């Protein structure tokens, strides 16, 4: 049996390489740690998360959870996180619509439509988002007329430099009593879905088509019973109207929120448009021709043949665009929307807790990213091509 010298043994060398790598990492970490602690000691700073419970004593422009200046730093950061989540979630939904429409428009047989879509994609993709945000905020929204001369769009939607006013719904006093019916209606939907799935698995065939009307029928029935017992509706429409110097009623989007949301949606939409276009073009022409020869209409071909197949190509890059949108919402600091990053920045300036707050920021964005990619991976595995 041939014995290899240990310095020629591949496994030994590999193990040695890793040990050396770990040692180097440990040395570097130790060096950095020593530097940080001397530097912090010289500046008279200590590392720790005690500051989170101290009163923040700064105001935040808008928040979806209750907050006032006497609340703690921890609460302030939480407000920022919620603000980031709200704008990201809304942005992801809206940008999907914009992107898909622009992507299809890019392939339209109508020359004008496809040129407009191409111009949108070409200009928006090639300029920095942060300048776009500033353009929308300083150049457009803050230049809108004052409340008195608001631009009125059908809806009614009012555009003013103080913000955007949209119609919306608000809860009436009867909303609490209605909660039970809404929950029962939702629960019934889940129960129907479970029953159908059980039937499908048990008898290995889909339930008859008319059964699906139960999805529609049962919730309506429950809500109707609710209406009999509780005549006052749970929600009331709110229409913005000019009252004195300001608008009353309706939803108000602050200029910062409106500019950020609009900028993120327009920017990410241009990337999604390219993804959608590439996904549709990846479907071989034969698929379209086969569908047409089967007598499907253009709309049917798009809906039944092209889209389900294109989805597989589209979803992975789409996920990273959603993540980009959430990450790009950190540019809110440039236009003064109080998102996680901008509030954390204020906290650093006030407390000097650089390391701690940067760790909080990074962990928040990282967990958001991981959570979104988890959801999209689950969805992706459901639409993936099942190979035989």
């Amino acid at each position, binding site marked *: 049996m041939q014995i290899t010298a240990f310095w020629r043994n591949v496994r030994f060398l590999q193990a040695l390489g890793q040990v050396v790598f770990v040692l180097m*990492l440990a040395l570097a970490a130790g060096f950095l740690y020593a530097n940080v602690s001397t530097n912090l000691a010289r500046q008279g700073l200590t590392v720790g998360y005690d500051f989170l419970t101290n009163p923040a004593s700064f105001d935040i422009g808008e928040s979806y959870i209750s907050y006032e200046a006497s609340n703690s730093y921890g609460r302030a950061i939480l407000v920022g996180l919620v603000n980031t989540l709200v704008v990201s979630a809304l942005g992801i939904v809206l940008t999907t619509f914009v992107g898909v429409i622009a992507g299809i428009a890019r392939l339209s047989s109508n020359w004008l439509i496809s040129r407009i879509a191409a111009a949108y994609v070409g200009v928006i993709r090639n300029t920095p988002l942060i300048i776009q945000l500033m353009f929308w905020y300083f150049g457009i929204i803050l230049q809108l007329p004052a409340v008195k001369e608001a631009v009125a769009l059908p809806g009614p939607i009012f555009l003013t430099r103080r913000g955007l006013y949209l119609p919306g719904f608000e809860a009436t006093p009867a909303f609490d009593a209605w909660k039970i019916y809404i929950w029962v209606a939702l629960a019934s939907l889940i129960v129907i879905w479970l029953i159908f799935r059980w039937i499908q698995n048990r008898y290995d065939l889909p339930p008859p088509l008319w059964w699906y009307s139960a999805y529609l029928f049962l919730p309506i029935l429950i809500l109707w019973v609710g209406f009999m017992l509780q005549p006052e509706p749970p929600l009331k429409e709110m229409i913005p109207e000019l009252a004195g110097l300001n608008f009353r009623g309706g939803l108000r989007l602050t200029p910062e929120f409106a500019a950020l949301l609009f900028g993120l949606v327009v920017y990410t939409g241009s990337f999604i448009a390219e993804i959608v276009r590439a996904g549709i073009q990846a479907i071989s022409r034969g698929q379209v021709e086969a569908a047409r020869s089967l007598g499907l209409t253009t709309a049917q071909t798009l809906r039944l043949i092209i889209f389900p197949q294109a989805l597989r190509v589209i979803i992975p890059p789409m996920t990273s665009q959603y993540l980009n949108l959430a990450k790009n919402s950190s540019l809110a600091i440039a236009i003064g929307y109080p998102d996680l990053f901008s509030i954390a920045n204020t906290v650093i300036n006030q407390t000097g807790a650089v390391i701690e707050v940067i760790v909080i920021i990074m962990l928040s964005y990282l967990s958001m990213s991981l959570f979104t990619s988890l959801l999209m991976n689950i969805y992706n595995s459901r639409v993936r091509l099942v190979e035989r």
Partner: protein
Amino acid sequence: MAAIEMQPPRLSVGPIAWLKKNLFSTWYNVLLTFLALGLLYALLKPALQWALTEARWGVIEANLTLFMIGQYPREQLWRVWLTIYMLGGMIGLSWGIWKEAARGFALIALGAGLAFIVIGLLLNSNVWINWLIADAVLLAFYALGRILPQRGASIATLGWLLYFPLIFLLVAGTRFIPWLPPVNTNQWGGLLLTLMLTIVGNIGALPLGVLLALGRRSKLPILRYFSIGYIELIRGVPLVTVLFMANLLVPLFLPVNLRPPDAVIRVMIGFIMFEAAYQAENVRGGLQAINRGQYEAAQALGLSGALTMSLIVLPQALRAVIPALFNSFISLFKDTSLVAIIGLFDILRIARSVLAQSDWLGTHREVFLFAFIIYWGFNLAFTYGSRRLEEAMGVGKR
């Protein structure tokens, strides 16, 4: 014969047929066309009206130098011009030697030079002479490249390798050369700073990115998990937090007795750290595209692991990812505008400072549109040049 008497089918050519085919083919296309026309009219009419009558474009003309180089000392301006002449020379030389591959970039550079000559003449500024020199240098080096012997390719490669360190030296200056006094990095600004950040960020990140990509595909678990951890951490957080971290933490991480580097250098470190993770993923894509047979053939020839990597695999992998690397160049070029948040005077921050001048209050649209045009034009030109290069190299064709 009857067939000869037949008229050609009507309306298959000509503008009306084109309109019918492309705009009015079906009832919903007619509807869409009119909707789009209405939308364009509603948007473009006020926009054009504003641009031609209300807009105060004087703000751009008055601050053009500021936009281009920020607070860079005006008496040292010749150094910036010299980098442009050298770029012209290198592009011309590459055009002469590699012909097809560099032609896109060369035509763009020539055209841009001509456009700037015209603009300079129109604005009554002396810069047209500088651009004329740049174009002349380009053409002269093109001629030189054509007559150069076979060694040409290696000379040009060496030239490009030297070019980037050289322009950095030229712009930054050094204490050791009396006629090249150091220019503090906080005086860099405008498009100059933007381009320096882009170049340093991309070139500095490439070696790190290659190492991380190799680490991620390594069989050694510790190396692999370290690379995965680094790449996913950086890709999971926004760039602005990485820049922020570099800006605030680099001074903390350095030994006490060492003078912390300037903000520009700190931000460059941040860009390199960030870009390395993305380029690692690009390179990994290229590595995955290499056929197993290549490894086996290299092994059969008796090459060691390191030689296989550096002679066989990496050259092919890097060639395959050239389009992705160009894309990341463009996206980093756009991303440099984030340094305005840290407080560096790139184009965006200059724009903000111009808006604070008392003469030009309220010219937000003009200034931001100008910034858009710089970025858009540069990206368009770069995309065109790189696409021609990819076509000539046959990337993705084989």
